[in-house]
């Protein structure tokens, strides 16, 4: 038996143990970090592959207002204008971005956002905290935007209810990137290279790059765009997205995966090479 096989078994065992402790300690990163260290010693894998971590949880409206969720709802019910203005400033941009995926123009999207806030005034006394305020707010928006989108004949509600998400899509996007047959089947035709170690903030400073990302998002099918807007741009959790958009968890993941793959492809030329 070759030496590497005997080394593999402890790795697998250790990984299993780490996976178990992950539930106890809730430290998901530790799992991959430790495994990487072991693999580095065993197989000489020298490149740290988790250099870029997803940014920690961003500030929420509760942090800026120093109010918890029930406090926020009570303040809105009591008609606190300062709180309302802060909440409005916080969420309007996100609402507008999401509304734009339902309706054909920005002007209509702005109207939908206004209607949404009107819906919030009307409904805040009936809000029972069965979902978070954010989920409730986004659900009001999606309901109004759907109605408006149908009226403006852009949004087709059948898109979400079909079993396969975005049925108009062909086979998986990635297929063309891999060798289709022979001994190298399933391997990269052109392996992805390391991107420039620029921070995302600096990448976004480049107008061309930002325009490319915005265009890529605009060109996504409506459902993919909605999921990506909520998940990656606004940082809404996957359960909340399923609640807001009324889709299954699996559907949500498939849509998100397709959207991310497309945006990555658009970002690629700007981060690779000297364009940045």
């Amino acid at each position, binding site marked *: 038996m070759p030496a590497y096989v005997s080394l593999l078994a402890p790795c697998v065992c250790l990984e299993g143990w780490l996976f178990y402790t992950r539930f106890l300690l809730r430290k998901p990163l530790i799992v991959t970090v430790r495994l990487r260290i072991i693999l580095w010693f065993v197989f000489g*894998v020298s490149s740290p592959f988790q250099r870029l971590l997803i940014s920690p949880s961003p500030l929420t409206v509760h942090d800026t207002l120093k109010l918890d969720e029930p406090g926020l709802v009570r303040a809105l019910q009591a008609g606190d204008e300062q709180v309302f203005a802060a909440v409005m400033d916080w969420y309007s*941009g996100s609402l507008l971005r999401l509304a734009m995926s339902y309706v054909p123009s920005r002007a209509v999207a*702005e109207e939908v956002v*206004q209607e949404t806030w009107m819906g919030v005034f009307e409904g805040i006394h009936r809000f029972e905290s069965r979902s978070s305020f954010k989920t409730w707010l986004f659900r009001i928006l999606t309901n109004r935007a759907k109605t408006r989108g149908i009226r403006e004949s852009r949004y087709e509600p059948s898109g979400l209810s079909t079993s396969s998400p975005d049925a108009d899509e062909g086979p998986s996007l990635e297929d063309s990137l891999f060798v289709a047959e022979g*001994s190298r089947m399933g391997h990269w035709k052109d392996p992805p290279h390391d991107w420039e170690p620029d921070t995302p903030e600096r990448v976004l400073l480049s107008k061309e790059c930002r325009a490319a990302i915005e265009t890529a998002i605009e060109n996504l099918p409506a459902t993919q765009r909605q999921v990506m807007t909520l998940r990656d741009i606004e940082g809404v959790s996957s359960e909340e997205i399923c609640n807001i958009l009324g889709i299954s968890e699996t559907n949500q993941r498939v849509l998100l995966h397709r959207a991310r793959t497309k*945006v990555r492809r658009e970002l*690629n030329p700007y981060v690779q090479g000297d364009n940045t």
Partner: protein
Amino acid sequence: METNLKHKLMRYMVGNFSCQDIAQLITDYMDGSLTFTERIRFQMHLGLCFACRNYLRQMKYTIATLRQLPPEPVPQHVREELLERFRAWKQRSPQSSVKSETD
């Protein structure tokens, strides 16, 4: 010949997850929704395949970039109009709540 052997070896060691599988499962992996064995196979592949490590890093980079996108600017007149409506609602609100109580 050498690369063939390397790929055969990799496939044997990483439990037949190809790079294509990795690319397809990457969102599930980041979501933490892979099963125990899938996760191990995924990580074993990552440990051995620099291209897939790069791909994972690129995906994380893409997400981090998307998260940094600034919110859509809302025109000032929309904001002002909404605040006006809010004030109007506030004035109306106590009456309407009294009304609903008496109903």
